[in-house]
């Protein structure tokens, strides 16, 4: 059984740039979609298509220009009190592209894990034990990573630590922005598996943001193709690939190199 978790209605973000001659850039225009519990929904698009801006609005890191965000039936668009935001972030958690950027290079990696307890209501948990268990869940040996600085770990290990945070918080929704673009093919599969495990165990939903059509096709229940700030195509991965309706998706489908099909004329 699944239920409606997140609903995004006509979300729009306009950035104003320039001092004297002001110019408006529409980063995201009228984006609407729903995420049910336990589902993988991916936003696919090239750089500049507005997918990261959409993610930041959902994570309440930037305020939308217009439109509404509902989480568990409640309007969270105008949420701005620190207590309320903390509550929200314990349910909606972000994982970002460059795991380096999420770490402070001068502090040990333990900090990003222990920080999480600020978001957890139950303050009586055994922190050390919980952190160790979470690290084991994501396939890391606590002895090998605790007490280390970020540069001493590989990209894959750093990315796994960010997923370990999800095991500590057990959010209802993970917004993963290009979580595997910096790591090589073999580790990539591991991180995707971890996100699937969270879904299977805790019914966690994932908004998966990527430029990699193949990956989105592989992991998603629903795929949304974004182009110039708008959603131009949506549907199940097979619907989108077999019967694309927008010109952009048709071109994408024609131009992406496939493994088991050869281009015509080549």
């Amino acid at each position, binding site marked *: 059984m699944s239920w409606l978790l997140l609903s995004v209605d006509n979300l729009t973000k306009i950035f104003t740039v320039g001092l004297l001659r002001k110019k408006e850039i529409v980063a995201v225009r009228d984006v609407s979609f729903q995420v049910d519990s336990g589902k993988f929904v991916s936003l696919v698009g*090239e750089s500049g298509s507005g997918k990261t801006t959409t993610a930041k609005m959902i994570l309440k890191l930037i305020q939308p220009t217009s439109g509404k965000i509902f989480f568990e039936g409640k309007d969270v668009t105008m949420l701005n009190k620190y207590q309320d935001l903390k509550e929200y972030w314990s349910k909606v958690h972000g994982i970002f592209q460059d795991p380096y950027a999420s770490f402070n290079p001068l502090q040990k990696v333990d900090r990003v894990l222990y920080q999480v307890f600020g978001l957890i209501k139950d303050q009586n948990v055994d922190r050390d034990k919980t952190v160790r268990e979470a690290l084991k869940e994501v396939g890391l040996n606590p002895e090998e990573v605790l007490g280390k600085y970020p540069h001493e770990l590989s990209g894959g290990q750093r990315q796994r630590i960010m997923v370990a945070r999800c095991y500590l918080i057990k959010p209802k929704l993970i917004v993963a922005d290009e979580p595997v673009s910096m790591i090589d*093919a073999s580790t990539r599969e591991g991180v995707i598996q971890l996100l699937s495990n969270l879904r299977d165990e805790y019914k966690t939903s994932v908004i998966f943001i990527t430029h990699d059509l193949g990956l*989105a096709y*592989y992991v998603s229940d629903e795929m949304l193709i974004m182009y110039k700030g708008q959603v131009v195509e949506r549907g199940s991965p097979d619907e989108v*690939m077999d019967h694309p309706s927008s010109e952009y998706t048709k071109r994408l489908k024609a*131009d*992406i*190199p*496939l493994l088991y099909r050869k281009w015509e004329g080549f």
Partner: protein
Amino acid sequence: MILLSAENVRAYYFLPQGVVKAVDGINLSLEKGITLGLAGESGCGKSTLVNTLLGSIKPPLRLVEGKILLDGKEISKMNISKLKKDVWGVEVSLVPQSALNALMPTKKVIDFIKDALVQHKKFSDSEILSLAKKRFEELNLDVKALYMFPHELSGGMRQRVVIAISTLLNPKLLIVDEPTSALDVSSQKQVLRTLLDLKKSGIIQSMIFVTHDIAVLRQIADKIGIMYAGKLVELSSTDNILYNPKHPYTVGLINAIVTPEPEVKRRKIMSIPGQPPNLLNPPSGCRFHTRCKFAMDICLHKEPPLLEVEGDTLVACHLFSSSKGG
């Protein structure tokens, strides 16, 4: 007809920390008319191999052993000035990984071409202009681009212009190193189309295409060579590599590829455990044994030779060598 052959080529980087065996005993021959794809993870020695094949060997890289023949001429014995005068651009051209920045930002494309051709023969300015115009037309590139500055061209167009310039003198062999990895899929397809046009029109005879993206090779390569830790582990036709891979590393590499196709969903993405070895101190025997689920005793101490199995497939793996029993 063999255009290029490499016999037991070893090229090492001599660094203060030790010797990096980036290319270690590679045998390769490339027939005329063939596009060969070279694939492998980053750090497997692909780029070092192509530089070695060209004779472009600069310290700390040194050719330790081996012979490279291009159309019968032993280029591994030539010095840099001879290579610059008679070989590079004329017999063989390289489009390097950094080709997007290869053009001179302060010069229009045509002026850059004039400068580049001064090196070779005494062309007059008008000859160069008509040569360049003709070539751009043959490759379906807009002739207007000749009068533009690099920053006025898109990434894909810049890459195609660089490819057109490097093949102005009709080299027999073109080597391209990751030509599309920085481009979006639509520009990528146009660059691949340009490479195909070069080959179809007979401007070049053969091509070596280096990339980590096997889905791209599938579209353009006749044969694919898989490299691992400085070695060639498998070489076969593109179809064999895709549908009938032999070496456990090739199998792993193919299974890690994710393209939006139902076949990929059915077979699932799989991964190769562990990481590629440090070439300062590579594993003994077969260099893949540390990550291979089929590793046997022999793999730990005996290096598998590249042998022919099933027709045209060459593979370096004890699972397929007749001396399996020892």
